[in-house]
């Protein structure tokens, strides 16, 4: 037993892993490998090795906390088996009461962002002011400059919190837009068919 402890204490990667673990406990947002390596002043490859060690150690059914990779970095979360207890004690302010309008607006910003409120309104067919304000307040989207030209509208894009809440490693993890609403061609053909039939 003593010899095992001595082995762990003298293993440099394990020492590194403990430091990484400490940083991740303090952090309130995912930390990238680069950020961890800079803080520890160590090689990024060695940090990744340490992260691999931690992912094994902090995984479902092995620990109450789980190390996961999302929003472009690594972060701890509660294990899923503890979710019911968490739900009794904690709130989910970010995603609670997200309306259909807010979800559609979020989808537009996630896929087409950075984009402005008028662009969102053009696609959805209704004003997006309150939906955008709600999403900004929740921290799911944030301002990302303005459209070119004088008086250009403010543009928005999704935040790392959006990726974290939805469990996405990054925006590329979203399904391809072409795979959604596959019957669009049929819709166009049908309308054209109707128009052609009456025009003749």
């Amino acid at each position: 037993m003593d010899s095992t402890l001595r082995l762990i204490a003298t293993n440099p990667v394990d020492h590194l892993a403990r430091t990484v673990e400490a940083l991740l406990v303090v952090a309130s947002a995912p930390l990238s490998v680069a950020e961890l390596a800079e803080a520890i002043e160590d090689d990024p490859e060695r940090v990744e090795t340490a992260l691999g060690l931690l992912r094994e150690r902090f995984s479902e059914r092995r620990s109450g906390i789980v190390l996961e990779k999302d929003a472009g970095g690594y972060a701890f979360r509660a294990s899923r088996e503890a979710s019911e207890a968490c739900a009794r004690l904690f709130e989910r302010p970010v995603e609670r009461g997200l309306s259909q309008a807010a979800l559609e607006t979020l989808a537009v910003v996630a896929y087409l962002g950075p984009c402005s409120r008028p662009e969102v309104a053009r696609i959805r067919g209704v004003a997006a002011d309150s939906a955008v304000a709600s999403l900004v307040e929740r921290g799911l989207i944030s301002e990302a400059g303005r459209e070119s030209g004088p008086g250009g509208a403010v543009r928005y894009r999704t935040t790392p919190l959006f990726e974290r809440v939805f469990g996405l490693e990054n925006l590329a993890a979203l399904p391809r837009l072409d795979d959604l609403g596959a019957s669009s061609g049929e819709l166009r053909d049908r309308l054209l068919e109707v128009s052609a039939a009456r025009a003749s």
Partner: protein
Amino acid sequence: MASLRAMPGVPVRELDLDLEAFEGPFDLLLTLLLREELEPGEVDVAAIVLAFVEHLAERDEIDLDACGEFLVLVSALLELKARLLFPDEAAEPDALEPEEAAEELARRLAEYRRMKEAAVWLAERLAGERDRWFRLGPAPLAPQPERRLAPQDPNALATALRALAVPPPAVSLSHMALRFPPVSQFLDRFRALLSRRRVFDFDGEVAGLSRVEQAVAFLALLELRKGGEVAISQSAPFAPIRISRADDERITTWTARSA
């Protein structure tokens, strides 16, 4: 009140509508709207939907294909009506042919449908992540960059402070007290000059004087011209100003007229 007559196996778009503003097949209604031969505000879409629902209720079984087609067409009609009711929108249906309008309509509907599907995907994703709990908080503080200062020497600091303690040089206010020489001084000078010479250059006479003295000399010159004592000529802007006796000018003018 609208009524709708459906026949088994007949596509919804060919069903006859009997509305207050229109009577005929559904697709003809769409085409008339696209061609702007029918006022969109006159078409009661709710009445069409109610009529279709009543028609469904009368039947023993639901034709899902017909329902789907009806939804597509009535949603197209709704968007068309909304767009024509608000002509300032970017779609500009006035400039489009019916086929183009239909294509534009379909493109927009498809775009919205994709976003709607994406919203459904996000909602499902969120539901699937309901048992993921993590700490939420403000973004961690970025590490403050260390201020890198060059090695400091106390003596150098003392020297710098000493330099600061030296009283600054007194600001010269000499330009505030302008001395204006009397105009009469230059009047006398120019008169004396013209008594000796017929012509002289103003620039040459005031060269070396201060700007104030030059200005006073110019005033004296204007005064002489006003009194008819001198003639002033300048071949071009900023060219030397030539001063001559006034009687010489009169002689020159007279000679020129006589010639």
